[in-house]
């Protein structure tokens, strides 16, 4: 296990190197002169020159890249022009809503996805199975941001049950936080619950075909015991991986949900940074999100290797 972990940690180095390089290159993809674009049409030649020097854009490309690597390794993601503070500080301030939203959506996705998938798999071909899988197909196809708008219209505008937008910190006012989080979490988690349900179902079907299940049936155990005691636990093993991947996907999806519900998280930070051409912030959000995506995937693989002893990574 330790060897596997070391191996996986080493494999992270090239992946993160590519991530950092791509993030670095973003600023160079800006058509024309990035500094003039950033400062807008009113900037004087002196300002442009000073900013170019401050960003190190007057140096050769490879030198800029090495400096960028060095800065990232020190945890320095530069200075936001618009917010007038280091990018890392801005990220830290905005991380909480995104994290809470992602975790809440994950909870929704698992709470809907796992039972539906297991139930559909255990009763293959039944009306339950068909209904649940049709629901899952629709769940995959319905765009999350559109679902959010429909939820807002139905539950906030028409019925007035829940607030249409906004955010309350769970540490300040837990009740308000819960009321504000229901719609975003359900609309973000619903798509992913469909994915989890589909995979849970096929895992369940696979497990139900195994010899030990036949043995359990031959012993005379009831369908309920066979499915929910013997098959369920083993079907969950691959589902764990999917749950991890879901978490990673949700971080990306949270960007869009935050815009719909006006939640002051990383998603709104990056979109407002794009509109203000605050590129260091754009780079910072992308880098941090990609890094957490990579780390979550690593954690998932390790958990998977830990809970399923049949898996050997050499």
């Amino acid at each position, binding site marked *: 296990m330790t060897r596997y972990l070391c191996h996986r940690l080493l494999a992270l180095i*090239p992946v993160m190197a*590519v991530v950092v390089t791509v993030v670095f290159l973003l*600023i160079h993809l800006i058509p024309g002169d990035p500094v003039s674009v950033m400062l807008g049409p009113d900037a004087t030649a002196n300002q442009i020159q000073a900013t170019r020097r401050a960003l190190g854009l007057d140096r050769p490309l490879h030198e800029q890249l090495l400096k960028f690597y060095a800065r990232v390794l020190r945890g320095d993601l530069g200075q936001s022009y618009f917010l007038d503070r280091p990018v890392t500080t801005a990220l830290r301030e905005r991380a909480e809503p995104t994290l809470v939203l992602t975790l809440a959506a994950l909870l929704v996705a698992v709470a809907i996805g796992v039972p539906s998938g297991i139930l559909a798999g255990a009763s293959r071909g039944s009306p339950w199975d068909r209904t649940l899988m049709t629901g899952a197909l629709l769940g995959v196809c319905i*765009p999350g941001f559109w679902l959010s708008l429909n939820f807002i219209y139905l539950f906030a505008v028409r019925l007035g049950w829940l607030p249409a937008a906004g955010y309350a910190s769970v540490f300040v006012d837990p009740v308000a936080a819960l009321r504000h989080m229901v719609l975003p979490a359900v609309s973000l988690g619903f798509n992913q619950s469909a994915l989890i349900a589909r995979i849970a179902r096929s895992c369940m079907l696979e497990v139900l075909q195994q010899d030990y299940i036949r043995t359990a049936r031959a012993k005379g155990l009831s369908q309920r015991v066979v499915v929910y005691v013997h098959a369920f636990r083993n079907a969950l093993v691959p589902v764990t991986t999917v749950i991890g991947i879901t978490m990673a996907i949700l971080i990306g999806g949270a960007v869009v949900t935050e815009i719909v519900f006006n939640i002051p998280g990383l998603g709104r930070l990056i*979109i407002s940074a794009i509109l203000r051409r605050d590129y260091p912030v754009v780079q910072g959000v992308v880098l941090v999100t990609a890094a957490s995506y*990579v780390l979550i995937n690593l954690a998932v693989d390790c958990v998977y290797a830990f809970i399923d002893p049949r898996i050997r990574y050499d």
Partner: protein
Amino acid sequence: MTETGRQNLPAQTPDVTSRRTRNRRPDWARRLYRNPNVVFGSLAFLLLVLVAVFADALSTHKPTRLYPAIRLRPPSLENYLGTDEFGRDVYSLVLHGSRVSLLVGGVTMLLTSLGGIVIGLAAGFSRRLDPVIMRFMDGLMAFPAILLAIALMAARGPGVWNVIVALSIVYTPRTAMLIRSTVLSLRELDYVQAARALGRGDLPLTYRHILPNCVGPLLVQGTFIFAYAVLAEAILGFLGVGVPPYVPSWGNVIASGKNTIREAYWVSFFPGAALTLAGLSLNLLGDGLRDTLDPRLRVQ
């Protein structure tokens, strides 16, 4: 075939063989026709294509013309799906929006397939290039797809071609990985080894024996990428970083509907329903094609 038929088999063998050979293509096509997912998916998709092609003839108003006097009108005989905050006809906007979606989806699918084939083949065939290419692909796949697309759009600015290029960069690694793994498994097969032993070079070998076997997985993957790209285009438009706001696209119309959701649900509802239909048709088609063309990947 009956017992009597079987007894007569030797005399009829040549006929049977020739009929089987003749029937091979229809057999393959028949399996497609019989798959309800393929049938429903392709019919719905065909409908979308027809709508996109005949959008001008089918629409009742010019989608870009603003009529402030009739802003936020609910669906009526005059405006089938109502009007938006600028008085634009939502029905005509939805019809014309399908053009951008299909253009972005289709071209992204083509570009990712081409890029995926070139990169996947290079990685699958060259042991020296393989680790470098694959680490690079891993790195690109480490970004959440939509976030990388947003970041690329942030750098390049709004525009249909920028959306296509951004989405192609985002989705090419997936296709490249698929082609590489197909090449790796095919490369070891006896018939490919035999062709190599006969002295075929890499290029003819690829063209004659490897690529034809990649078509199935590529088609399935391409259909899903089409669906992702249509959705991603709408998301980018919705966030205001996709195609410019004056171009009628589903994402842009949904974004304008967001501002007026309290007064006019129809502005965002109908383009979203069209987007869902597009996603549904492509997902059904993809699932059906996968089951028919690549039985190994069949989901139970």
